[in-house]
C-alpha cells in the first residue's frame, strides 16, 4: 500500500468515526427529556457535521453549516424554548414501537439499495463525471474566480440563489407575521387587562 492510499483509507475511517459520533448524539437526543440539553446537543451535532464536511472536501458547506446550523439554528431553538417550556413530557413506551419498526425497515431497505450506488470517492460516477466536471473545466475561462462553488452559486446558478433568498425572505416575513411586531403575547395581554380591572 502506498502512503497516498493509506492516507485516503485513514481519512475515510475518520469520516466513518465522525458519522458514528453523530449516531451516538442522535440516540442521546432521542432519549433525553431536557429540551435545553437537546438543543445544545443538536448544536454540537451541527459542529461535528461541519468537521465532517471539511474532511470530505466540502469546505464551503462546512463553513455554512458551522455558521448557520451550529450558530443560527441553535440560537433560534434557544429562543423557542425560552418562550415555551424547558422539559418534554416522558413518552409512552408502547407508542415508540411503531416508529422504531418503520425506521428499522426503512433503514434496512436503504442499506440494501446502497449496493447499486457508486463506491465512495468514485471519480467516474454519473454524478461526478457530468455537469460538475464541466463547471470545474470552464470556470476559470468564464469567471476568473478560483473558488468553483462560489462561481456556480452566484454565476452559473444565480437564479437558484435568488429563489433561495426569496424563500428565506418569505420565511422571515411569516415569522414576523406570526409573532407580531413586538406586541405582547395573548396570555400576557389578558393578565395585564385583568390587573387593570382590579386596580380602581
Amino acid at each position, binding site marked *: 500500500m502506498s502512503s497516498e492510499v493509506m492516507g485516503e483509507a485513514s481519512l475515510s475511517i475518520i469520516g466513518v468515526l465522525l458519522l458514528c459520533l453523530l449516531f451516538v448524539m442522535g440516540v442521546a437526543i432521542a432519549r433525553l427529556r431536557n429540551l435545553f440539553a437537546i438543543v445544545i446537543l443538536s448544536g454540537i*451535532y451541527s459542529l461535528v457535521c461541519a468537521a465532517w464536511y471539511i474532511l470530505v472536501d*466540502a469546505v464551503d458547506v462546512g463553513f455554512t453549516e458551522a455558521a448557520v446550523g451550529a450558530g443560527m*439554528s441553535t440560537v433560534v431553538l434557544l429562543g423557542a424554548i425560552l418562550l*415555551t417550556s424547558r422539559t418534554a*413530557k416522558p413518552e409512552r413506551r408502547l407508542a415508540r414501537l411503531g416508529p422504531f419498526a418503520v425506521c428499522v425497515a426503512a433503514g434496512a431497505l436503504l442499506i440494501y439499495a446502497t449496493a447499486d450506488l*457508486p463506491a465512495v470517492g468514485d471519480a467516474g460516477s454519473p454524478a461526478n463525471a457530468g455537469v460538475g466536471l464541466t463547471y470545474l473545466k470552464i470556470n*476559470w*475561462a468564464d469567471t476568473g474566480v478560483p473558488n468553483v*462553488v462560489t462561481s456556480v452559486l452566484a454565476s452559473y446558478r444565480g437564479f437558484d440563489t435568488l429563489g433561495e433568498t426569496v424563500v428565506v425572505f418569505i420565511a422571515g416575513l411569516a415569522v414576523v407575521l406570526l409573532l407580531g411586531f413586538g406586541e405582547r403575547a395573548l396570555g400576557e395581554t389578558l393578565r395585564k387587562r385583568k390587573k387593570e380591572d382590579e386596580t380602581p
Partner: protein
Amino acid sequence: MWDIILERGSYWAIIGVMMIGLYIAFSAENLIKRLVGLSMFQTTICLFYVQLSNVANATAPILLPDDMPKGAYGAERVADLAHAYSNPLPHVLMLTAIVVGVATLSLGLALIVRINEAYATIEADEIRASDVEVQLAEDADAARTGGEVVI
C-alpha cells in the same frame, strides 16, 4: 470485506443517522423535539449528497495555481485540469438546502410559539385532547340550541 466497508461504510453510517432523525421526528410528542429530529433528518440528506460528490485523492473545489493560467480569459473555454477536484455542484445545492432548512425551522418554531400561546402546551397529545374537549363542549352547546353536531 475490508474493501466493501471502505466503499460503502460511509453510506451505511449516514443512513443510520438518517433513521435516528426520522425516529425522533416520528416518536417525539414534544413539538420542539420533533422539529430537532426533523432538522437532523434534513442534515443527513446534505451529508449523503456531499458524500456522493466526494472524489478519492482529490481536493476541495478551489482551483490550484496550475489550473489558473494567466491570460486564459478569452482563450480556449474548456480547459484540462492538472489536479483532481471534488464535484462542486452538490456543494452548491446543499448550501441552499442548509440555509432554507434554517428558515423553515424558524417558521416551525414560530408556529410552535403561537401554539403554546393558544394551548399553553407543546405536547402533541395534550393539544389533541384539548381540541377534543373544546369540540365536545361546542357540540353540547349546539345540541341545546339546535345547531349542527360534529362528533
